[in-house]
């Protein structure tokens, strides 16, 4: 069940990002809904204790859990065309409602399955059944997650993976049905096993369903990668490049290519070494090569993007272009070269991962690799003719961050707003500069742009950004929060507030119904689990870089910690368990308070070239281990039958995790910073521990 859940979660998240959009809020909503619905399913599992007879054979569980992901994923791709007009994004309210409906079948069943399994496995002597099942589930997640993340993410497409998962569950159902002597599940499992095996050979569901995502274009390349889905389509003679369903660019997009390059490149008297971060295959290299450069170092995290650049464009063939498939922060830390111009062609900072490339610390690291007259350029969505509150906050933050590191920053308002920064004065009469240099441009020239109009618009924007926004920092990533606010502002707020409010009320009502001095600890523990996982993943990316395999290892360490903690806790269910429970909460509080110090120490270690990986793995394992032991203690201390206890503890743990997943990543970390986020978590655990202490005699 654990393996099925984690693999399904990873695949679903990728599919959701493909169909909806990839930003921190969307990810937070999906994960949060996942855990909340699973928690509600678990709490509903209490009803099982009222049934004197078995409601269904145990073998139905893996059967249902195996099939549901496949069916859901199919409809997720297909339903986009039913529910939306071509090319449309979901409204936020629609997205929340549809996510809920799509996740409901699998997540509710998975949640319900936990107390169901407890009921099936319970014997009067097996008083440690709950923590053991929890531990096994976590171990299943470890194995499933590791296998998928490290192997399947590169080689096995989504539907094939889900088919394997379904077959795996069918085998489990078959054995269980044999043991239970349940005929219907047995034959059904056998039928599905044979049918599934044949379909793997005969039917390519990935190929069939991907057409639903691009119904009117011809797909010539489609690849699920650890960094997202990459697709290339053709429409007439034009090629279109998509990442997670969002258009990166189309061929013949001269305006974007020229603006991304010339506002910055033209500033430098003789650029020789250029660092291009992302998007080189979209025509930018061709524009850069109009200058007498010696080398272009093109850094692209996702190797699939450079692959499609080589396959479908002529833009990566020049010998002066050196391609590096690596995280940009990690690349900078290797300090291989210094640069005259740095062009950052990144998406806007809507995720914590991308935000790392817009921070004060990033620009400080970048400056170490800049030649004296170097120019740096980045872009943000255009404000066109007006700057909303959200746009001011976001752009103000980035502008302030740049100004902290460079003496001069100028905004060129084009199809995007380009911020060009340098320690030397910036020439604002860009069309004059282009003409003086005799550069053959089709758009960035005096015919299409007016220096006077650009200057006026630039002044308009800059005046409105003064005193706006806070400096964007690694451990205070305010910019991605502001970016999310800008994204949200396009939706009708009178509509999207309602589903959120309704769902929040349901969660609150359910939580308060089951909250006791014991379950409060597990609720806070679940919240802390999600929150700390986000803190650790973000910190690792900030301090080390975005490396997919390493992040998978950290997630695996977290799950493993939960499993071992739960098993270890099950062994310590003797003596004063209440005291141990209280102490575990205080221990978690203490470690949460300590974590910022440890992370700051990590920064120092980076400077001293000490590897951070063991520290992160050990810290993650210990934190998760404490949470796992809390689960064991809470399951022992809470009142009621094993089914009731399993339902309550598992359910509240998940609901706490759900809230942690969204509140921490979307609000707490960017608004308060990592330091205060950890302090808050520490306080919450201290409070829940204190509540348990006060009521210990009760």
């Amino acid at each position, binding site marked *: 069940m654990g393996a099925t859940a984690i693999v399904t979660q990873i695949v679903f998240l990728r599919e959701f990002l493909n169909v909806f959009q990839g930003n921190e809020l969307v990810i937070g909503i999906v994960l949060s809904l996942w855990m909340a619905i699973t928690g509600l399913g678990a709490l509903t599992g209490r009803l099982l204790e009222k049934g004197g007879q078995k409601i269904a054979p145990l073998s139905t569980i893996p059967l249902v859990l195996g099939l549901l992901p496949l069916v859901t994923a199919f409809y997720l791709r297909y339903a986009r065309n039913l529910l939306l007009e071509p090319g449309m994004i979901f409204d936020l309210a629609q997205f929340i409602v549809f996510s809920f409906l799509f996740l409901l079948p699998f997540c509710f069943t998975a949640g319900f399955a936990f107390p169901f399994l407890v009921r099936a496995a319970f014997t009067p002597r097996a008083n440690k059944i709950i923590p053991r099942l929890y531990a096994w589930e976590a171990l299943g997640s470890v194995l499933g997650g590791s296998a998928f993340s490290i192997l399947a993410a590169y080689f096995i497409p989504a539907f094939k993976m889900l088919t394997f998962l379904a077959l795996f569950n069918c085998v489990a159902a078959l054995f269980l049905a044999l043991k239970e002597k349940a005929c219907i599940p047995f034959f059904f499992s056998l039928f599905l096993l044979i049918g599934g095996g044949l379909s793997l050979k005969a039917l390519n569901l990935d190929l069939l369903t991907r057409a639903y995502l691009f119904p009117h*274009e011809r797909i010539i390349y489609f690849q699920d990668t650890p960094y997202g889905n990459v697709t290339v389509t053709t429409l007439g003679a034009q090629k279109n490049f998509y990442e997670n369903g969002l258009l990166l660019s189309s061929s013949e997009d001269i305006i974007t290519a020229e603006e991304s390059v010339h506002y910055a490149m033209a500033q430098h008297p003789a650029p020789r070494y250029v660092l291009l971060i992302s998007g080189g295959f979209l025509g930018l290299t061709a524009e850069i090569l109009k200058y007498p450069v010696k080398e272009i170092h093109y850094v692209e995290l996702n190797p699939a993007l450079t692959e499609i650049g080589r396959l479908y464009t002529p833009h990566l063939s020049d010998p002066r272009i050196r391609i590096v498939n690596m995280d940009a922060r990690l690349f900078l830390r290797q300090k291989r070269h210094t640069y005259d111009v740095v062009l950052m062609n990144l998406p806007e900072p809507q995720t914590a991962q991308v935000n790392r490339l817009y921070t004060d610390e990033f620009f400080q690291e970048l400056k170490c690799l800049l030649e004296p007259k170097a120019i740096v350029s980045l872009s943000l969505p255009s404000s066109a*003719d007006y700057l909303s509150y959200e746009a001011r906050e976001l752009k103000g933050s980035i502008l302030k961050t740049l100004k902290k590191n460079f003496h001069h920053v100028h905004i060129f308002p084009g199809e995007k707003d380009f911020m060009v920064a340098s320690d030397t004065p910036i020439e604002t009469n860009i069309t004059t500069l282009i003409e003086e240099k005799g550069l053959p441009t089709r758009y960035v020239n005096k015919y299409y742009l007016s220096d006077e109009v650009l200057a006026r618009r630039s002044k308009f924007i800059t005046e409105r950004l003064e005193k706006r926004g806070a400096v964007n920092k690694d451990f205070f990533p305010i910019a991605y929060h502001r970016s999310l606010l800008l994204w949200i502002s396009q939706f009708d707020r009178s509509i999207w507030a309602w589903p959120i409010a309704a769902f929040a009320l349901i969660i609150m009502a359910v939580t308060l119904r089951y909250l006791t001095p014991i379950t409060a600890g597990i609720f806070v523990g679940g919240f802390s689990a999600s929150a700390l996982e986000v803190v650790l993943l973000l910190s690792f990316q900030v301090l080390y870089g975005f490396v997919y395999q390493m992040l998978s290892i950290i997630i695996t360490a977290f799950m493993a910690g939960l499993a071992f903690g739960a098993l270890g806790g099950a062994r310590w269910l003797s003596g004063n368990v209440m005291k141990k429970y209280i102490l575990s909460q205080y221990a978690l509080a203490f470690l949460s308070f300590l974590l910022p110090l440890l992370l700051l120490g990590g920064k120092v270690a980076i400077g001293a070239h000490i590897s951070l990986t063991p520290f992160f793995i050990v810290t993650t394992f210990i934190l998760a281990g404490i949470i796992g032991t809390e689960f064991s203690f809470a399951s022992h201390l809470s009142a009621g039958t094993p089914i009731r206890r399993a339902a309550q503890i598992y359910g509240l743990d998940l609901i706490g995790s759900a809230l942690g997943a969204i509140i921490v990543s979307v609000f707490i970390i960017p608004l308060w910073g990592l330091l205060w986020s950890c302090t808050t978590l520490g306080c919450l655990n201290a409070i829940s521990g204190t509540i348990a202490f006060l009521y210990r005699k009760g």
Partner: protein
Amino acid sequence: MEKITKREFIKYLAAGLSSACLSPCLDALSLIARLGGNARAEGPNRWSREAMFYEKTERGIRCLKCPHSCVIKENGTGICRNRMNYRGKLYTIAYGNPCAVHIDPIEKKPFFHFLPASRSFSIATAGCNLRCLNCQNWQISQFSPLDTYNIDFPPSRVVAESLSNNCASIAYTYSEPTTFFEYTYDTARIAREKKIKNVIKSSGYINEIPLRYLSKVIDAANIDLKCFDDGIYQKLSGARLEPVLNTLKVLKEEGVWLEITNLIVPEWTDNLNTIKKMCEWLRNNGFSNVPLHFTRFTPMYKLTHLPLTPISTMEKAREIAINTGLNYVYLGNVPGHPAENTYCPQCKKMIIERKGFTILANHVSKGKCRFCGYPIAGVFAIST
């Protein structure tokens, strides 16, 4: 002195720590409040005027300005978000408070046959009566003036600034000028007195009576003819085709210089048969000499899962339009394309060489082709 017990002390401490932990939630809540609600005007203010074109009904006030014909209840607004019912009267809350004020080349609107190479003083208030999925200016069009940062710019100031900046025209643009109708109308009247031209960039979704009123004070209009399919029109923009076609006829009848823009959106408005029908309708209704601008779509607002319009599609659309009998057909957002130039409908020679907003060569003399003498439609100079 009353002592407190150890338990009470810890209780109060826990409560205090909870408050400290929750206090940043107030920051989040204040953000949510900001997102969740707008300040509501307490009746008319200095940026309100009693609206034109409305009638009182039993259910509320019916606005008569556009085909939506919104029935607005007390303290409510119409679809455009800038007309409000206050104590039984309809007020515009978009008067003298633009949120966007810029100076642009007139070709940007686009106007290619109206005062080429001149500057246009461009203004807009928030609000729009359409809901276009690909709106470029959604940050002002899909909000009320109560939500936006506005500038105090009464009509007289607009005209004064236009004069001091040597602008040949005032453009009412960016959002939807027919929704800030009264502001447009009053400003245009003053501008006329000062010999400044008035141009609008509009969706054309307006009723005939207000349109005829407005036509008396404006000199040129660029109307977005989004599609020639009513069903798609409704899905793409929340409006209907027929009123827009009527607007085109009325403007032509009233002698307002007219140019038309058609944005070709992949999977929505790129059907070449539909484009052909549109061009035939334009020809049959006397619009052969009205410049038609096919512009290239870029992903925007709620339509971001689409590619750019292929240039080949745009070229085919232009070919269909010319073959149908439309004389002046341009391609926008395709820098450097020969379809930016103006060609004589008779001798087919290039009479205006245009690159972006710059006229490189002009072979139109006294409104005629210098090569063959064919009259070229347009307003190429300011008449006194």
